[in-house]
């Protein structure tokens, strides 16, 4: 396990992604709401570059009393990583697929120290 330098803090713009090559492995480092997340840039579906798409909040159906559909809404507390190949979605927080908990992205620990961002590979 080694800490690999990703960038100086602030080099990745808010909402941006940096894809780094750590040996054989491509890792996407995502900055969202000031926090960093690192996942292997490999989608468990068909192998797409999962970190290179967009991030989007999850969608909710809002159901009122008696089962009445009211509207849809975005769940701003649950941001999804959307794979650009077929739109499989994964929770940004833990990389778990939103449809099937057994499917998950490989997550790497992010360490922020001395004004720089590292990932533990």
């Amino acid at each position, binding site marked *: 396990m080694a800490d690999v330098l990703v960038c100086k803090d602030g080099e990745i713009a808010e909402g941006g992604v940096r894809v780094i090559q750590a040996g054989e492995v491509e890792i996407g480092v995502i900055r969202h709401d000031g926090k960093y997340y690192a996942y292997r840039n490999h989608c468990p579906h*068909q*192998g797409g570059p999962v970190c*290179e*798409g*967009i991030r*989007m909040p999850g*969608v909710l159906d809002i159901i009122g009393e008696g089962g009445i559909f009211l*509207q*849809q*809404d*975005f769940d701003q507390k649950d941001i999804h990583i*959307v794979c*650009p*190949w*077929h*739109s499989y979605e994964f929770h940004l927080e833990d990389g778990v697929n939103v449809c099937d908990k057994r499917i998950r992205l490989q997550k790497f620990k992010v360490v922020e120290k001395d004004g720089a961002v590292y990932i533990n590979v």
Partner: protein
Amino acid sequence: MDTLNYRDLSVEEFDTKTLLAHAAQQAKQRRYEDFLIVDVDAHHYESDSFAEIVEYIEDPVMRQQAKYQGFGGTGIASGPGSYQNLNGRLTRYPKVRGEKTPPTPHRDITLTKRWMDSLGIDVGCMFPTPMLQLGTCPRIEVEVALARAYNRWLCENVLAHEPRIRSTLYLPFRDPEACYQMVQDFGDRKGVIGFTVVSPGKKGVHDNAFMKTWAAIEERNLALVFHGAYTWGGDQHAELCNRFIAVHALGFTWFNILHMTNWLCNGMPERFPKLRTCWIESGLAWIPFLMQRLDNEWMMRSSEVPLLKRKPSDYMREMYYSTQPMEMVDNKEALELTFKMINAETQLCYSSDYPHWDMDLPSTIYDLPFLTEAAKRNILGGNAKRLFNLEPVVSEAKVKQLAERNAARPA
């Protein structure tokens, strides 16, 4: 000589008051100022303010969809809408527009070869995208004219120049005579390997008016392809769906189920025994369903289908199918059984559907644990070669790779 007062219309900017100057004169002459005039029906083009209006949509998810799809044309309020790229979740659709290509060959050739090379594909059968919906245009003559224009353009600008790209040309299905003419006019063009019925057409494949078209395709030893598609607006059943997933999941299979059923119940495989058909982009799960359903009914009602000499499923096992979008979620056993039921080893042809949202890579076939290496290769290429009578062309990228591999091999 005095110059007359003039207005040069080539430089004058449009102004409503100028356009209506004569109306203003009339108003003045008639002294409209003497009484009240009320107009109870007048309009504005609110679509010009659509960007402002969408901000007032209360449902935030729908607001985002409306912003993304826009209004008019294929916007959110149109029949089909623009849901294919999942409201911006798939980035390749808008981004590819900015992708740089050299001036020659045609941009379509360059872009197609780029993704084909990346996926490892040697020969690809090219279909249009929005024009697959031509059958929903209310003016049949527009469908015919655009279909002919597209086919001619494709033959001259793409197929004539790139042997790795072939096509089964679009038939304007609502005009049987125009379909026949299409086969006559384009059936012998370079790169044409068959003809396509886009399945939501509003005619039966068994209509007598089509018989000479099927015969002409058979005579030329070309393939007849039924390409699944959806239609939303204008289709009584689809209009009962409120989400695109429902329209798409049902539409792409339903219309091929419909045509296949009519094809069999009218004994078409017996009437055109040498005509090879391929059923495209409906996935695979529908085939076992329909085989079982039709066989069961046929055993009791064969009197209605006297042309069929064998069970409907026997004929279906001799037809060809494309793989995508292959149902692959937690269904390994069902998939294996499906492959067995449809004689996949000899009848199934790999398809990517790239760049669409539900595209499949060759690895979806190559990585299947229950297939032999020979079966994989058949499905990935050999079966299509037989179906389309293809002269195979190997991609330049693969030729180079093979040469490098051979050079690296110890002598």
